[in-house]
């Protein structure tokens, strides 16, 4: 992956993706000639200013003459691209797939324009005229979570503090910060109870991973035998009603699609007790409270306990399951098409024992990535397992 930053004056979307793809290929020690398929991940022509970007990026990377498919799934785009690669390999139509994604969500447009473009991912017909920021539907969900379970603003502010603190130690992160719960609560209001520091970052960045069969890796990746192999043990993508107000009332403060996707991906991976078997997770913290909702929907803690867990740091670096060891979208940042792939890069590095210092998770075997589109309209959960 590339570093995530607020604005890369030295690199447009093509340069970013080329850099990430090169890093993935150098890591594997493989050449492009033996790769069967490219999967391009990006969300928005509005941000990237190029239609049909998929095959433009494929040409930039050097995949001309091979098939390339472009995948889009809102915030879950990168994770869905990885799932697409897995499907192609399982179907036997490819042995090695290069997944590359990126987005220039940073300052190539001003904040007002960025907010306006992002608002288009709300329902244009029935929602977008009513709210210009995604803080609004997230705020409605967490307000109901607070009413039902006694969750507090200070509890989810702890997540904003945690992920920014962790990002200080990640050289690939957009913006680590040392801030307090008081500073989060004192930042500019977006939609009550959410404040500016509860919201994630908009970044320029790209990420890439190479997925292959074991036979291919043994033949074409000289570095494969030097490191513990990591497999994708489970993957699932599930949709929900995109509009919050169409969802069953009992599920209003929850990500139903995430709950189902996690269940399916865990079943595939043979995970019966997620809180005991999962060693780390990259979770979609688009807003701080969304992370504590995800603790519940991913089965890390009982439903209704996410706030308490956040407050006591149960999923901090030294916790039961370290969550967002990269710093998450709040600290590492978010370049939409790259985000789910960057999560995979973080999890794979952790599983291989390549992360050093205080972010390092001790001897992990199973890591999970979690992303969603909109306010959970599509959820993708991928499970990674170290095999040796």
């Amino acid at each position: 992956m590339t570093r995530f930053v607020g604005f890369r004056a030295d690199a447009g979307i093509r340069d970013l993706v080329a850099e990430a793809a090169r890093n993935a290929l150098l890591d594997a020690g493989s050449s492009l000639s033996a790769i069967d398929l490219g999967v391009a991940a990006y969300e928005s022509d509005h941000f990237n200013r190029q239609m049909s970007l998929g095959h433009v990026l494929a040409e930039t990377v050097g995949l001309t003459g091979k098939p390339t498919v472009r995948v889009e799934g809102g915030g879950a785009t990168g994770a869905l691209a990885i799932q697409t690669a897995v499907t192609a390999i399982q179907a036997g139509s490819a042995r090695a797939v290069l997944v590359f994604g990126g987005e220039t969500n940073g300052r190539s447009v001003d904040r007002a324009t960025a907010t306006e473009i992002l608002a288009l991912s709300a329902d244009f017909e029935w929602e977008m005229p009513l709210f210009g920021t995604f803080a609004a539907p997230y705020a409605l969900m967490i307000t109901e979570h607070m009413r039902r379970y006694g969750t507090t603003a200070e509890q989810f502010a702890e997540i904003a503090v945690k992920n920014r603190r962790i990002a200080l130690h990640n050289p690939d992160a957009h913006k680590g910060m040392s801030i307090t719960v008081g500073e989060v609560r004192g930042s500019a209001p977006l939609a009550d109870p959410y404040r500016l520091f509860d919201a994630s970052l908009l970044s320029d960045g790209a990420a890439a991973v190479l997925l292959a069969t074991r036979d291919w890796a043994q033949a074409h990746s000289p570095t494969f035998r030097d490191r513990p192999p990591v497999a994708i043990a489970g993957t699932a993508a599930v949709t929900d009603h995109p509009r919050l107000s169409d969802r069953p009332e009992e599920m209003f403060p929850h990500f139903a699609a995430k709950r189902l996707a996690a269940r399916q991906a865990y079943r595939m991976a043979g995970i019966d007790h997620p809180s005991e078997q999962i060693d780390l997770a990259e979770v979609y913290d688009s807003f701080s409270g969304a992370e504590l909702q995800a603790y519940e929907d991913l089965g890390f803690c009982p439903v209704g306990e996410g706030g308490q867990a956040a407050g006591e740091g149960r999923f901090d670096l030294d916790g039961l399951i370290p969550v967002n060891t990269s710093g998450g979208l709040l600290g590492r940042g978010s370049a939409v098409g790259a985000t789910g792939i960057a999560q995979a890069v973080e999890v794979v590095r952790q599983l291989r024992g390549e992360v050093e210092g205080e972010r390092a998770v001790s001897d992990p075997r199973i890591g999970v990535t979690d992303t969603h589109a909109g306010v959970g309209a599509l959820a993708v959960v991928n499970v990674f397992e170290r095999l040796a």
Partner: protein
Amino acid sequence: MKFTGTHKFTTPEGQEYSLLGIEMTQRYRHTVGFSDPFYQGIDQGLLRATRCSGCGASWFPPRRYCPEDQSETVWYDLSGTGRIVAATRVHIPPPFGGVKVPYVLASIRLDGVDGGITHRVLTEEPPESGSLVVARFDGADPDRPPLHPLLRLAFEIQETTK
């Protein structure tokens, strides 16, 4: 599209790069399609929904075909009342203008249909979950700047008596 010139940009590390200034504006004629009777209803002070002519299931937002059995639906009028599930105060204006910030936004279950709407509530403080609301309609006014028709609809807290 418009090219507005090349701008020099210096990174914090002192490297200089050229940035191309580009402006794009799109103009659309966006059809509301099957939902047109809903928009006509706003002109008449009515909230409208659809009901399946086969199984009787009701749908809001309106749907041309019933997702349950694929029968065609028919339009009917709602009472305009509803109940708040959750509400928030929003501090960023919606993209089409016409709303002063802060404003109150709520997820509302509508009476008489199995569905809901996320919409404005004309009050200062976000109301409690369970509060009852009623739709209010603003007529189109040729002397005012045009307002997105969905913004000519809003909800008011309904006074309740025990």
